[in-house]
């Protein structure tokens, strides 16, 4: 494969991991949403580039969906929700940001160590894509665990989805089913997020899940 093509793919996929770290670094709600828009933008660029070098035109559709829905529509909707609920504030973390990022680096190193030898038989492109996709997935999980805020958990989950999109495009030739499923999950996630965020506000006046835990499910 043409080295420049590989380098650009590496640039975009590595950029996705970097933006996932930036997500971990954010401590303000609006900054988080903007950063997520950047995340979605990078993933759509990455998928578009994969479509170009793999000669798989159906992936352009996936890139367009990621761009329109996740980089434009969802961040706009989240901004409106934040304004309406009046929840612009700093996001509390379970441990400090520095320690979270250190754990993040550990996870990236782990996923690279795990994925590179396993995918050695597939091409370089697939190796890189899958290693970075697993990193983004684990970083998204870390974000969901280490934040006490419902909005940031949702954003963490959506960044996991972005990582999965990267993985699916890296696995060459995976049929259209994956695109449909990804688009589908975006749609439903949007609906559910919308419904719950509004309903949570009705009941709680906050989206801090520590307040939610007052009604903890582990009661007898």
């Amino acid at each position: 494969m043409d080295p420049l093509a590989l380098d650009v793919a590496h640039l975009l996929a590595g950029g996705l991991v970097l933006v996932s770290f930036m997500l971990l670094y954010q401590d303000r709600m609006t900054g988080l949403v903007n950063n997520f828009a950047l995340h979605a933008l990078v993933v759509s660029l990455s998928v578009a580039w994969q479509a170009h070098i793999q000669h798989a035109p159906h992936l352009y559709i996936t890139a367009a969906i990621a761009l329109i829905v996740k980089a434009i529509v969802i961040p706009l909707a989240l901004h409106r929700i934040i304004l309406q609920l009046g929840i612009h504030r700093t996001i509390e973390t379970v441990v400090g940001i520095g320690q979270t990022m250190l754990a993040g680096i550990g996870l990236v190193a782990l996923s690279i160590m795990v994925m590179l030898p396993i995918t050695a038989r597939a091409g370089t492109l697939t190796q890189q894509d899958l290693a970075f996709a697993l990193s983004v997935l684990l970083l998204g999980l870390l974000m969901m665990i280490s934040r006490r805020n419902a909005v940031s958990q949702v954003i963490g989950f959506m960044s996991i989805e972005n990582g999965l999109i990267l993985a699916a495009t890296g696995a060459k030739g995976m049929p259209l089913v994956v695109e449909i499923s990804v688009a589908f999950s975006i749609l439903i996630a949007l609906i559910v997020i919308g419904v719950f965020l509004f309903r949570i506000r009705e009941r709680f006046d906050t989206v801090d899940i520590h307040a939610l835990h007052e009604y903890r499910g582990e009661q007898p």
Partner: protein
Amino acid sequence: MTEAGSFFVDAVLVIPALSAALLAVLPDDRLTARLNVLAALLTFLAATVLFFERPAPGHYLIVDDLNVVFIVLSTFVGFTTSVFSGSYIAHELETGRLTPVYLRFYHAMYQTLMFGMNLALLSNNVGLMWVAIELATLTTVLMVGIYRTPAALEAAWKYFLLGSVGIALALFGTILVYLAAHSVVGEGLDAMAWNVLVRRAPEFDPALLNLAFLFLLLGYGTKVGLVPLHAWLPDAHAEGPTPISAVLSGLLLNVALFAVLRFKSVMAANPGAFAPGPLMVSLGLLSVVFASFMLYRRHDIKRMFGYSSIEHMGIVTFAFGMGGPLANFAGLLHMTLHSLTKSAIFYCVGHIAQVKGTQHMPDIRGLTVSHPALGWGLVFGVAAIAGLPPMGLFMTEFLIVTTTFARHPLLAIVLGLALLVAFGALLLRLNGLAFGDPRGGRAPARASFVPVVAHFALVLVAGIWLPPALTAWFQHVAGLLR
């Protein structure tokens, strides 16, 4: 392999999809409840035909020995639950817990859930199965939160988050399986078809399969409710409407475990991949032990039976992890009987909660005196689920413990002890609930007892005399699973 087969397979999918669309728009609640029942009945009848007429495996759908039992079971329980749902929902409307708009939403979601589960069971494509399971999860999330109380919202939120994480992990595992397959089979739909995967599995890269199975077990295992990924399950059972608890316990957990089984058979076909057994055994055993102890301190009746579902799913996972014809057979039968028993229990519990006006167990007493039918139904159900002979579940649990004892006595002892602990907890609670002076509401229950009776009859019959055809069928499938 016939034309009629493909017609009926399509019917099993199209009927729920169409009725979901229809139920979303019809206003009259009596009509929608009856339509719901009718759709479920038709789906069930179409599914039974699949015993006799099967379509050729296509790229997207397949009917083989493993899933035909589950599809019939699923549509059957879907049907009986719809009957129960009719009377349950009528009461909810009266008390004002649900408004007509939400009722339409509920029925549409119910049929969508049926569609999703059927599609997951029938799909021949790994990705399509994933989509279907995700659809089923999302519909149940929406339904768990339908009462919109703070507790319901927290339960739905927790379920949504944990379920989504599980689904994401499962998708990554699916992608890895595709990756393993496509270097051998070639790109495209063939690399995602179950029948092709199982056939060509010996040629796949074992390391990829190992990693894939890890992700798949964790991902789909969250949906099965294996400890430590179970946190969503008790809340979802307690806070959602009871028909949803019945369908969750009886069907959705089975579908998720079915997905794990499919992948396990692919793994087992490849000699280089590590044996999936020990992992499943440990998760299953952990679930059984944890859940059986958690049964003691519960005060909410539906939450308690949620933990019971965790326990039983743990038993089944343990059995499949053990492997071998006897354990697999017992596991399959246990899945089936647990579906029937647990859903029947939830039918009783639903009506009990309605007539007593509460789910809080200390406030519910003397059911056999105040509501004899419900009370004795509950007694029968708890006896069945606790594993008393001559119920079917006793036989399957006995089989599992004995085969385990032959191979790993220590594990069998732990399992047996956990089962005894659960047994004790359930009977203790049952004593309080069913006997003694009546407490709580006295209004008669306007319910149809047909579903309850039907399920319990089946469970009793299975315990005493399992039809030879059915036994042969289960044994055949158990052989396929290794």
